[in-house]
């Protein structure tokens, strides 16, 4: 009895100390925030630096920091230097919401660049909408969203999935098998693919989902082999791609016989999968490291100079890099970092970026992007084999596509 009482007492005292420490820390942060306000503009960077998504998101953070460095070297924005405040979303959606709140409420940043997974964006969305703050989201996603406080600098479905399908159709690949990780993007993408197929005389032979992080693909590969599709449309995410391609490769089916069109495999992922296993297969993006523009030569060189010659650049990195420039341009145009003014000024902002010309669509806050289909090369790079010729107007709800009528 006596022990337990002492224990209780001691614990409660410690609880009090912790509480006090909480309070203490918050007050020091307060002063930090106010003193940093005058000669710099704080911007938040919020990606997963730990956990399963860190692999991908760290590279985007690096690209965004590079853009901030470059802008600062060129004199900053409105005569002020940009000061990045980097937070870790830890691959955990509520943490994204928590850190977003911290960046807005405590650090009082002018804008936030961040997120990768749809789930992290959905978790942050209410925070930005309720606090009327800006988020720049740099990754291709499933569409069907247009938040007034989010700018989407990655592709929406009509700039990636639909061109990918157009390409397969053009090549006569009419019988498709759909493979995806079990979450929002693949399911929505496949819904769109099925509607497209129905309207274009294509046949869907199978639709399979595996849990995130799944590594046992022999059964799925067996199903594919049995269905004998012309092509596979792959929306698997992350590590699953490695297992899927390794196990597909070992059946001996070549990329010529049955190409896999992937929308989540970029230069970085190719290295983990192993070039041997994925060479010859197709990918759909808006940017490759090999994309031939002057801006890209500069970007690739600058990135390698800053982070190492062995680094590769990829589509989401480039979209994050663009986001910083697009925001800075809108701020210059507005003459202030005020959110509403920046939003108003952003519409129509147009820049020549590594992927080519990008323009912000003021109506839905997405970006005009050029779609590019590529083939994975034996050296791990991706060679463009087709592009849309001009930037495609973003259409997150696919309103301009008649076959997509029943989708939303």
């Amino acid at each position, binding site marked *: 009895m006596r022990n337990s009482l002492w224990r209780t007492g001691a614990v409660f005292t410690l609880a009090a100390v912790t509480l006090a420490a909480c309070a203490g820390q918050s007050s020091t942060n307060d002063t930090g925030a106010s003193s940093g306000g005058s000669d710099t503009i704080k911007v938040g960077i919020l990606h997963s630096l730990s956990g399963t998504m860190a692999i991908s998101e760290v590279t985007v953070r690096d690209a965004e920091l590079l853009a901030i460095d470059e802008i600062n070297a060129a004199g900053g924005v409105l005569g002020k230097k940009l000061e990045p405040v980097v937070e870790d979303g830890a691959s955990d959606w509520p943490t994204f919401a928590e850190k977003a709140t911290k960046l807005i409420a405590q650090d009082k940043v002018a804008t936030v660049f961040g997120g990768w997974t749809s789930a992290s964006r959905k978790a942050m969305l209410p925070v930005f909408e309720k606090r009327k703050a800006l988020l720049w989201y740099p990754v291709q996603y499933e569409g069907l969203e247009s938040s007034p406080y989010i700018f989407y600098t990655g592709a929406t479905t009509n700039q990636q999935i639909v061109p990918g399908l157009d390409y397969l159709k053009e090549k006569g690949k009419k019988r498709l098998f759909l493979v995806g990780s079990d979450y929002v993007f693949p399911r929505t993408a496949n819904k769109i693919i099925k509607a497209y197929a129905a309207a274009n005389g294509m046949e869907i032979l199978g639709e399979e989902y595996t849990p995130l992080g799944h590594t046992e693909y022999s059964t799925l590969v067996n199903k594919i082999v049995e269905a004998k599709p012309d092509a596979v449309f792959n929306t698997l995410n992350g*590590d699953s791609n490695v297992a899927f391609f390794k196990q597909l490769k*070992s059946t001996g089916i070549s990329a010529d016989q049955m190409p896999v069109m992937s929308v989540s495999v970029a230069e970085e992922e190719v290295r983990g999968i192993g070039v041997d296993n994925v060479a010859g297969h197709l990918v759909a993006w808006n940017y490759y490291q090999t994309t031939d523009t002057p801006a890209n030569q500069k970007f690739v060189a600058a990135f390698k100079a800053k982070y190492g010659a062995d680094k590769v650049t990829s589509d989401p990195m480039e979209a994050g890099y663009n986001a910083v420039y697009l925001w800075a341009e809108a701020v210059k145009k507005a003459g202030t970092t005020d959110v509403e003014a920046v939003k108003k000024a952003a519409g129509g902002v147009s820049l020549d970026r590594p992927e080519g010309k990008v323009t912000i669509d003021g109506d839905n806050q997405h970006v005009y992007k050029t779609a590019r289909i590529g083939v994975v090369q034996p050296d791990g790079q991706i060679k463009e084999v087709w592009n849309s010729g001009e930037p495609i107007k973003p259409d997150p709800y696919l309103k301009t596509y008649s076959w997509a009528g029943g989708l939303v």
Partner: protein
Amino acid sequence: MEGVLNQLPIGLSIGAVLLLIALGLTFTFGQMGVVNMAHGEFIMAGAYTAYLLQGVGFLIALPAAFVVAGLMGLVLERTLIRRFYGRPLDTLLLTWGVSLMLQQLARDLFGAPNVQVASPAWLRGGVGILPYNRLFIMALAAASVLAIWAYMNRTGQGRRMRAVMQNRRLAATSGIDTGRVDQRTFFIGSGLAGVAGVALTLIGPVGPTLGTYYIVDAFLVVVAGGLGQLRGAVLAAAGLGLLNSYAEFWSDASLAKVVVFVAIIGFLQVRPQGLFFVRSRALT
């Protein structure tokens, strides 16, 4: 129809993977009551050994990974686990802490992204639905089982190991140095994880979180098979592999995982101690 038949060898090959990852666990868990959550990280260590030894030869990576992972296990046993015998739940949490640190260590040593381990040329191609690399894994699992069986039944060390497994106190009083036997078991159990890691490079990603994908499944095999039971582990792995393969074939991968879990709960209703177990009169 062909697909249904194909699922049979596929199920067995899934079972072979399960068996490889669970084989070491069933002994560390069975003999020492140690629930080693860092087992997955020993698998990862084996996979990274294969990565580092690329070019030297895939077959050399197997014994090398056995030694690397085995030594890691030995160090863990000597420094920490030794203090925790008889407290299985505490070892579970302790080794989870170790596994977190090992994951971060791998991240710092090899980087967060997956690394590429190319399959050796002689494992390309296959027979029917089963690629050579799957057949290789099945052969490797079979060879491991045979080796362990021979070790346990044909060597003095193995017999001592069995003695300790069945009755630790009695073994100790009859002059067996149980500490040494524990070390050896842990070395072998962890080493087998390393071998499994090399095999997994043939079919899956190689990255710091590799172990986390397999650890829950491995424990389920051990639970279903019965502690320290070689034939239990073999049958449980084969059974779960087949169940998984057919459940996924007729539904999807997500549902298959749930089906497997429900099946194991149901199975434990009938055989609470797994397929096989050693009868004991001790009151715990």
